[in-house]
């Protein structure tokens, strides 16, 4: 594809902007992109716009349904524009839409890092239980029933302790 500005060089910089629910794609060559950013031309396509471009990439094929967080009143469309959620409950209210976004941003991982002191005991136990359940399944699959029984007892004791 040729650069939309100079129409001469190959376009290798791609900008996406979502405005009023329409997606705007701009393809530029590196030289033009650099020149325009110096002239502040590209400043409206700041980091947030690029991020919301990423969030909004799934907008096209889906019908517009007004999703709203009951806790804080944040609308999903508003989040797409600002890339800011309104409260912790938004993560649950928009879970179906946010999960694929999170995968695109961070891959398939779940949190493995620090846990705040006040919730840590429960979360740590839950993590431990999850791990043991996985081991249990593997043990059953490998027909190691004695080991499986031990793991099952360990899970039970952890669940009772909670």
């Amino acid at each position, binding site marked *: 594809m040729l650069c939309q500005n100079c129409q001469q060089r190959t376009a290798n910089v791609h900008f996406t902007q979502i405005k009023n629910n329409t997606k705007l794609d701009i393809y530029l060559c590196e030289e033009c992109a650099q020149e325009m*950013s*110096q002239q502040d031309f590209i*400043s409206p396509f*700041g*980091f947030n716009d690029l*991020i919301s471009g990423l969030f909004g990439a799934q907008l096209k094929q889906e019908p517009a349904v007004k999703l709203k967080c009951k*806790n*804080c*009143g*944040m609308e999903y469309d508003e989040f797409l524009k*600002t*890339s*800011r*959620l*309104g*409260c*912790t409950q*938004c*993560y649950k209210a928009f879970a179906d839409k*946010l999960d694929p*976004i*999170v995968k695109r*941003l*961070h*891959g*398939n*991982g*779940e*949190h*493995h*890092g*620090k*846990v*705040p*002191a*006040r*919730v840590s005991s429960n*979360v740590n136990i*839950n*993590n431990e239980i999850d791990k043991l359940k996985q081991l249990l399944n593997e043990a059953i699959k490998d027909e190691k029933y004695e080991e499986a029984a031990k793991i099952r007892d360990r899970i039970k004791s952890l669940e009772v302790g909670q």
Partner: protein
Amino acid sequence: MSKIPAEKGPEFDIAVSSRVRLARNFADIPFSAKMNTKQQADLIKRMQEIMSGFTVYGKLMFADMSTLHPVDRISLMERHLISPELADSKENSGAFINENENISIMVNEEDHLRVQSIFPGIQLEKAYKVCDEIDSLIAEKADYAFDDKYGYLTSCPTNIGTGMRASVMLHLPALVMTGYMKSILESCNKVGVTVRGIYGENSEAVGDMFQVSNQVTLGRKEEETIASIDGICKQIIDREKILRLQLYKKNINRFEDRIFRSYGILQNARILSSQESFKLLSDVRLGVSMGIINDIDIVTLNEAMVLSQPATLQKMSGKPLEQDERDIKRAELIRIKITK
């Protein structure tokens, strides 16, 4: 004057500073986008109570954005103590900053809190340790927004998980001169590492200064992220060192000529734009770090770089300045600084 460049850290001639920040929100109040003024004011009060007894790293003073002069705010931003977003905000936000200016806790930014620590040279582990300590102290006194799967919940999903951004500022003139910087940018992108200009988001590289930081915050432990950024930076530093020597050996006269010319201009110029001064300071910094210039210290150059920035410059002059006046003042301050 910022205390940040006043001491040297490991690899200080290439690694200017290491910074770690944690994005944190409390569970009982909405995120910044949906907070009302009372909730914002209450949050500041809550943080003042929590931080009042914390003096391990010196007393933390609250820089209130609603009372601070715009020039002071931008100056804090230029010294990387607050974000551009916070410098722009007007009411009910601010930052707790210690006397050494290596700790800053921003309140009512994009997230309720941004706990940040900055050290000279490449010292990410140390910066993380300080953030971790402050973060644990806050967590003892109030409940954070936290989820088993997504970790620390943040206003923007780009920060969930650890909420941690670890970044190192690197001076890479040889990689820029030889054009290798482009391939570094590309390969860093592939492994989830961002490289950008010194002011962070939306900024071009100024004075061959680049900020290397992690992109991904979910699925990796804090220590793993710190280790990978640390490792990547050390590799970049090694490559920069090799290229510096190659460039020097290829044409010693031309190399020294460029550096001494830049030094000469800085010592004698009467008008300097910020762009020009950054370029010249970058050359001189390269010369000092390679032992070509011996009568000036890297720390002095770091200081000259900080005070060349528009707001810090005006703060030093004690009054707002027009651009022409700034360029004259900048030339004067740099001249005094480096010919002392």
